[in-house]
């Protein structure tokens, strides 16, 4: 019923409508895919590729312009991994951590900065890919996989020692933690991005001009912090799996 009044409102404010749970479905090989997520993801990937290729195509001894910026970004991402995993074996994990950070960051900002609502889709709307729970769950499960891989490849089956290490009483909690880690990672990112977009659209619904701007800036800030948190936590989990018990 309340959705009916939503629909009536939508007819009036088609540019600032609130749409949740509506998707552009693609049926491929018996699977229903959320098309709008794929479209924006491809745009994000293309943007990242163009940036990195442009930044690294003409390398100079003294970095200038884009190359300088890229090196700064690389050092920033390296620091995230180094602070959480430790000097000794952070190096192989820099690519994963930085990929996760850059992807989430660019997705969030692309959703907030590009005026997607000007593009009409038959159903659903283009927005940040991270406001779809499937994307965030996939990213969180990737993190789970990588910390298991990190631990198993470094310590072999001795990795499972840490479940019973201080005392076996904590075994159920330690097993539970493996499930709550991806759950909290994915819900945190999903909820934050969706909440940002909802708040902005509701404000835009009430007052279409000027008033949503501060909220949008807050959203930009919050979404960059979310990217930082996701990558920091991934690095922390990997570091936890890698650390030695003595």
């Amino acid at each position, binding site marked *: 019923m*309340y959705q009916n009044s939503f629909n009536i409102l939508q007819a009036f404010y088609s540019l600032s409508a609130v749409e949740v749970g509506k998707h552009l479905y693609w049926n491929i090989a018996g699977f229903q895919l959320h098309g709008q997520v794929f479209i924006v993801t491809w745009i994000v990937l293309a943007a990242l590729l163009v940036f990195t290729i442009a930044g690294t195509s003409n390398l100079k001894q003294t970095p200038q312009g884009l190359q300088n910026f890229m090196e700064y970004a690389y050092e920033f991402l390296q620091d995230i991994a180094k602070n959480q995993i430790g000097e000794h074996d952070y190096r192989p994990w820099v690519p994963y951590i930085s990929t996760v950070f850059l992807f989430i960051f660019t997705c969030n900002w692309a959703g907030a900065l590009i005026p997607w609502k000007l593009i009409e889709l038959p159903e659903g709307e283009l927005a940040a890919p991270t406001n779809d729970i499937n994307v965030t769950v996939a990213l969180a499960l990737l993190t789970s996989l990588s910390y298991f891989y990190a631990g198993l490849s470094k310590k072999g089956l001795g990795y499972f020692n840490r479940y019973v290490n201080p005392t076996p009483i904590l075994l159920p909690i330690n097993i539970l933690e493996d499930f709550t880690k991806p759950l*909290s990672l994915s819900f945190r990112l999903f909820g934050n991005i969706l*909440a940002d977009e909802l708040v902005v659209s509701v404000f835009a619904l009430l007052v279409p001009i000027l008033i949503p701007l501060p909220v949008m800036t807050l959203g930009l800030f919050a979404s960059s912090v979310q990217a930082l*948190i996701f990558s920091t936590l991934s690095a922390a989990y990997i570091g936890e799996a890698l650390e030695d018990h003595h």
Partner: protein
Amino acid sequence: MNPIVSAASVVASGLAVGLAAIGPGIGQGTAAAQAVEGIARQPEAEGRIRGTLLLSLAFMESLTIYGLVVSLALLFANPFTS
């Protein structure tokens, strides 16, 4: 759609966010107060304190966000209305 189910869902979604905001609100207040105290005592550490504060504020914020996810599920993807 059963009207009682929808009414209960709307009330519950309001409560989910509202109640979930209490604890993190108190926690964020405490954290910010301690950070201000730390900066007042040691102004040269302001940068590091601010960074840590923002990160931990975002962690506390995520607790409210869990409540928000529950309420969004109740509003837009309600499993009890077929």
